[in-house]
C-alpha cells in the first residue's frame, strides 16, 4: 500500500494504487446468514406458539432472500468496493423486524401489520437498488442541496393539513396508506446540511462577532442555516413530533461541529437544547407528561391508574432478563397499541433478552461505525459530511427511541430503524443504507487507507489566525 505523497488537496484524485479486495463474497455469505437467522426467528415463533412451523415460512424466507440477493446484485454491479457489512445488517434488522411484527400480530388477530410491512420493505429494497444503480457518484447530490431543502420543508409541513393521530400530526393518508413525510425529510436535510456546510466551511470558521467566549461566524453564513433549522423545529413542535425534532437538532449540531471543529458550537447547541427542552416541557402538556413519566414511570401505578406504556415497557425489558423468554413467549403485547411501532424494542428485549438486545444495539453500532469509517476515508468534504450525517441520523434515532423505551431519556415517539412497524421509516432507512453503500464504495475506490495522518494535515480546518 503506497502512501499518498505530500499534502493533497480535496479535488485531487489518486489513481487506484493497489487493487483492493472487493469482499463481495463475504457480503453474500453474511446476507445468507442474515436471511437464515430471520427465517429461524420466524419458524421459532411458530414452533413456540403452535408447535409447528408457520405456513408462510417458505414464502417469507424466499421473499427476504430474493430481495436481499437483488440488492446484493445491485451492489455487486455498481458498488463493488462497498462495505460488505452494511447490506447484511440492513437485511438482518429488517428481517428481524418483520419477525417481531409477525409475532405481535399473533396477539392482535384483527389487526395485522406484517403483510404491509413486507410490502414496504420490498419498496425500501427497491429504492435501495434504484439508488445504488442510478447514483453513480454521491457528489451529484451537492447540486440538489436547495431542491432537497425546499422539498424537505414541504414534506414537513404537509401533515399539518391532515388530522392528528395519537396526539402527533405527522401522518398523511394517501389511498389507504399512511405516510410519515418527516422520515424522508431527514435524508433530504442531511443532504442539504452536508452540501451547505461543505461549501461554507471556510466562511463558518472565520471569526465573526465574539459573544462571551464563543466565536460566532458572520450572520450572513449562519443566518440561512439557523433559519432552516428553526423552521423545521417549529414545524415539528406544531406537529408534536419531538423525537424527530430532537434528531434534527442533534444532526445539525454534529455536522456543524464536524465541519468547523468549534467546540463552542456544542456548548451553544447543548444550551439551546436544554432551553428548548425546558420551554417545550413546560408549555406542551403532551411533552410535560412524558417528562413526568420518565422521572417516575410508576407514578400512575401508585395513583391506582394502572401502569402506563413506559412502565409496561420497562416490565417487558425486565421480564427478558439476560437471555429472554424466547421468541413468541413474552407478553410485550401488554404495552398496548404502540407495541409494534415505537415499543418494538421492548418485544426484542423481552423475548431475546439482554443478549439479543445488545446484539441489536451492536448491529446499529456497526452500521454507524461503517458510515463514520467511510466518512473518514472519503476525500471530499461533502462526502465526508454526508456519511457522518447519515450515520449520525441512525445513531441519534436509535438513541432517542431506545433510550426512551428503556427509561434512559424522556420518551419521544420515533421508529426504530428497520425494526419498527412504519413504512416510511423502512423505506427511508433503506435509502440511507444505499447512500452509505455508495459513499463507502467511493471511499474505498479512492484507495485511501482509513485515517492516514497526512489526511489530517490535508483536511484540518483552515483556521485563520485573527
Amino acid at each position: 500500500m503506497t502512501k499518498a505523497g505530500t499534502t493533497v488537496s480535496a479535488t485531487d484524485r489518486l489513481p487506484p494504487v493497489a487493487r483492493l479486495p472487493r469482499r463481495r463474497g463475504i457480503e453474500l455469505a453474511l446476507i445468507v446468514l442474515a436471511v437464515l437467522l430471520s427465517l429461524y426467528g420466524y419458524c421459532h415463533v411458530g414452533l413456540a406458539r403452535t408447535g409447528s412451523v408457520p405456513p408462510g415460512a417458505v414464502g417469507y424466507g424466499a421473499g427476504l432472500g430474493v430481495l436481499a440477493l437483488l440488492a446484493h446484485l445491485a451492489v455487486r454491479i455498481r458498488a463493488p468496493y462497498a462495505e460488505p457489512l452494511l447490506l447484511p445488517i440492513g437485511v438482518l434488522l429488517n428481517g428481524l423486524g418483520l419477525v417481531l411484527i409477525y409475532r405481535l400480530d399473533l396477539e392482535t388477530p384483527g389487526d395485522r401489520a406484517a403483510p404491509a410491512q413486507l410490502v414496504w420493505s420490498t419498496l425500501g429494497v427497491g429504492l435501495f437498488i434504484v439508488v445504488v444503480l442510478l447514483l453513480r457518484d454521491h457528489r451529484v447530490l451537492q447540486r440538489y442541496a436547495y431542491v432537497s431543502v425546499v422539498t424537505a420543508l414541504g414534506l414537513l409541513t404537509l401533515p399539518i393539513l391532515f388530522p392528528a393521530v395519537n396526539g402527533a400530526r405527522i401522518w398523511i393518508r394517501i389511498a389507504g396508506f399512511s405516510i410519515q413525510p418527516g422520515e424522508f425529510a431527514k435524508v433530504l436535510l442531511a443532504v442539504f446540511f452536508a452540501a451547505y456546510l461543505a461549501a461554507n466551511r471556510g466562511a463558518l470558521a472565520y471569526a465573526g462577532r465574539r459573544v462571551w467566549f464563543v466565536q460566532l461566524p458572520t450572520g450572513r453564513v449562519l443566518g440561512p442555516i439557523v433559519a432552516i433549522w428553526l423552521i423545521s423545529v417549529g414545524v415539528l413542535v406544531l406537529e408534536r413530533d419531538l423525537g424527530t425534532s430532537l434528531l434534527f437538532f442533534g444532526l445539525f449540531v454534529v455536522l456543524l461541529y464536524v465541519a468547523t471543529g468549534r467546540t463552542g458550537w456544542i456548548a451553544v447547541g447543548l444550551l439551546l437544547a436544554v432551553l428548548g427542552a425546558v420551554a417545550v416541557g413546560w408549555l406542551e402538556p403532551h411533552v410535560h407528561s412524558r417528562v413526568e413519566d420518565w422521572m417516575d414511570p410508576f407514578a400512575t401505578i401508585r395513583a391506582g391508574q394502572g401502569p402506563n406504556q413506559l412502565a409496561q415497557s420497562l416490565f417487558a425489558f425486565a421480564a427478558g432478563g439476560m437471555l429472554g423468554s424466547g421468541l413468541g413467549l413474552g407478553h410485550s403485547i401488554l404495552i398496548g397499541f404502540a407495541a409494534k411501532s415505537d415499543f418494538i424494542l421492548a418485544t426484542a428485549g423481552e423475548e431475546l433478552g439482554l443478549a439479543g438486545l445488545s446484539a441489536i444495539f451492536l448491529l446499529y453500532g456497526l452500521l454507524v461505525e461503517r458510515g463514520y469509517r467511510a466518512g473518514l476515508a472519503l476525500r471530499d468534504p461533502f462526502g465526508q459530511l454526508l456519511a457522518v450525517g447519515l450515520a449520525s441520523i441512525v445513531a441519534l434515532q436509535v438513541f432517542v427511541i431506545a433510550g426512551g423505551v428503556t427509561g434512559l431519556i424522556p420518551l419521544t415517539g420515533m421508529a426504530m430503524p428497520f425494526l419498527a412497524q412504519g413504512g416510511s421509516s423502512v423505506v427511508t432507512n433503506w435509502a440511507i443504507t444505499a447512500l452509505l453503500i455508495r459513499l463507502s464504495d467511493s471511499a474505498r475506490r479512492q484507495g485511501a487507507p482509513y485515517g492516514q495522518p497526512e489526511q489530517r494535515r490535508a483536511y484540518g480546518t483552515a483556521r485563520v489566525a485573527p
Partner: protein
Amino acid sequence: MTTYIRHAGVFCALLLLALLVNATRVQVFEASTYDANPANRRATIARYAQPRGDILVGGRSVTGTRDSGEQLRHERTYADGPLYAPVTGFASQVYGTTLLEHTEDGILSGSDPMLAPLPLWNDVTRARSPSGNVVTTLDRAAQEAAYRGLAGRKGAVAAVEPSTGRVLALVSTPSYDPAELSGNGDAVTSAWARLNRDPRKPMLNRAVRQTYPPGSTFKVVTAAAALDAGVVTDLDERTDSPDPYTLPGTRTWLTNESEDCADASVRVAFAWSCNTVFAKLGVDVGAEDMVSTAQAFGFNDTGLKIPFSVAQSTFDTTVDRAQLALSSIGQYNTRATPLQMAMVAAAVANGGQVREPYLVERTTRKGGETVEGAGTHDVRQAMRPTTAARLRELMTDVVREGTGTNAAIPGATVGGKTGTAQHGVDNSGTPYAWFVSWAQADDDLEPKVAVAVVVEDASADRGDISGGGDAAPIAKSVMEAVLGLRDADQRRGAGGRPAHRR
C-alpha cells in the same frame, strides 16, 4: 476534519454505551424489582401458564387443573372439594390462595427454587420449573368417615398419629367447594360474596382456625398436671372435694351433672366427668403448674404451623383461684382448636410425648422423585411417661364403662374423654359436644390414632347434647377407618345406648 469526525464518532459510541449500560440496568439489576411490581401481570400470567401441581391423599390426587384458554390459562379443579377444603384451601385467580395451596404454592406453581434442575438455574434462565406435587399425611378413609359422621352439622374433626404427629384427618363442616373460587369470572366473585355472607360460615376452617371451650375434655390436662405435680398419687384414693364446690373467694357454686361426685376418687371423677373434683384439683395444683402443663401440651403456642398456621389455643396465665378452678375444667378463658385436643389425646397415647402435627409427608417433582421430605418436627414431653400410662387407664375406663361407651371398638383398646362445653352469654348457647380419644388395635404395638371431635350444633334439645352421644360415634368411625376395623353390627347415625351426661 477527520479529527472532528473521530470526535463525533466517539460521541456516538458513548450514546451506544449509554444504551447498553442502561439496558443492563433495566434487564439485570432492576429486573427483580420490576418483576415484583404488583401492576406487572407477567408473574400472574406465568403462574397460570402451566398446570398447577397436585395435592395427593392416599396416593390419589384430590386436585386438578382445567385449561380455560384465557390469558390466565389453567384454573384449579377439585375432585372432592368440600371434603378436603379444610386441607387444600382454595387457589383462586382473584382471591389468592389459602392453607396448603398457599403454604406449598412454590411447589405447586413451580416457582420453588428446589424444583430447579441446578441451583440458580431458574434465576439465570428466568424459567419456571414444571410444578411439583404435595403428598399429604391424610388418611382418605379417616377423612371420609369424619365428613360422613358430621353429616353437615357444624363441627370439626382432627385426627393425628400419636407416634409421629402425622395429621390423618382434618374436617370442618359445613364446608364449601373451593373450585367455585378458582377462576376469575363473575361466577367467582358472586360465589365469594355468597360464601362470605353465609351465616353458617362454610369457609371457616373449624378444625384449626377456630377455638372452642374444650369443656370436660380439658380434664385430661388437669389430671396430667395433678399426677405430675404429685397432688394425686393414687387414682383410687378418695379426694377431698365437696359437691357442690364453692369457687375459692366467691359465693358461686359449681355443680355436677353426675351423681356420686362428692369426694370421688380421680378414677371415678374422670369416668363420670365430675366438675367439682377437677376444679378443685386445678386449684390444688396451682396456676404455675397448670399453666406449664397446658403449655407443654401446646396451649398458648402462637407459632404452630402444620404447615399453615393454627389458631392459638389458650390457657389463661393470669388467673385468681376461682378463675383457675373454671379454667381447669375447660371453661373461663380456656379455649382449644380441635387439632389441639387431638394433640392432647395423642400425648396420652404416646407416653406423654407431644409430636408436632404436620400435614405434608413430602413434596415431589412431577415425575414423583422427592424434593423435600417431611423434615424434623418438635417433640415435647408434656407429662411423665408414668403419668401418661395412668391417664391411658383413666381414658380406657371412660370408654369401657363411663360416658364414652359409644366409642368402643371391638378388637381395639380405645381411650376417650367426653365434653360438653357451655358457652355464650350466661351459657345460653347450644353447648358444644366434644369427644377426644385414641385407639390401639389389639395386634398393634402402639396407638395408631388420636382424634378430637367437636359438634357445635348437635341439632337436638339441650338436654340431649353430650360428647358421648353426638361426638363419640364420629370419633369411633374415624378410628375404625384408621385401624382398618369395621364393627360388624355397627349402626350408623345415633349412638347405641343413651349416654350419660358428661
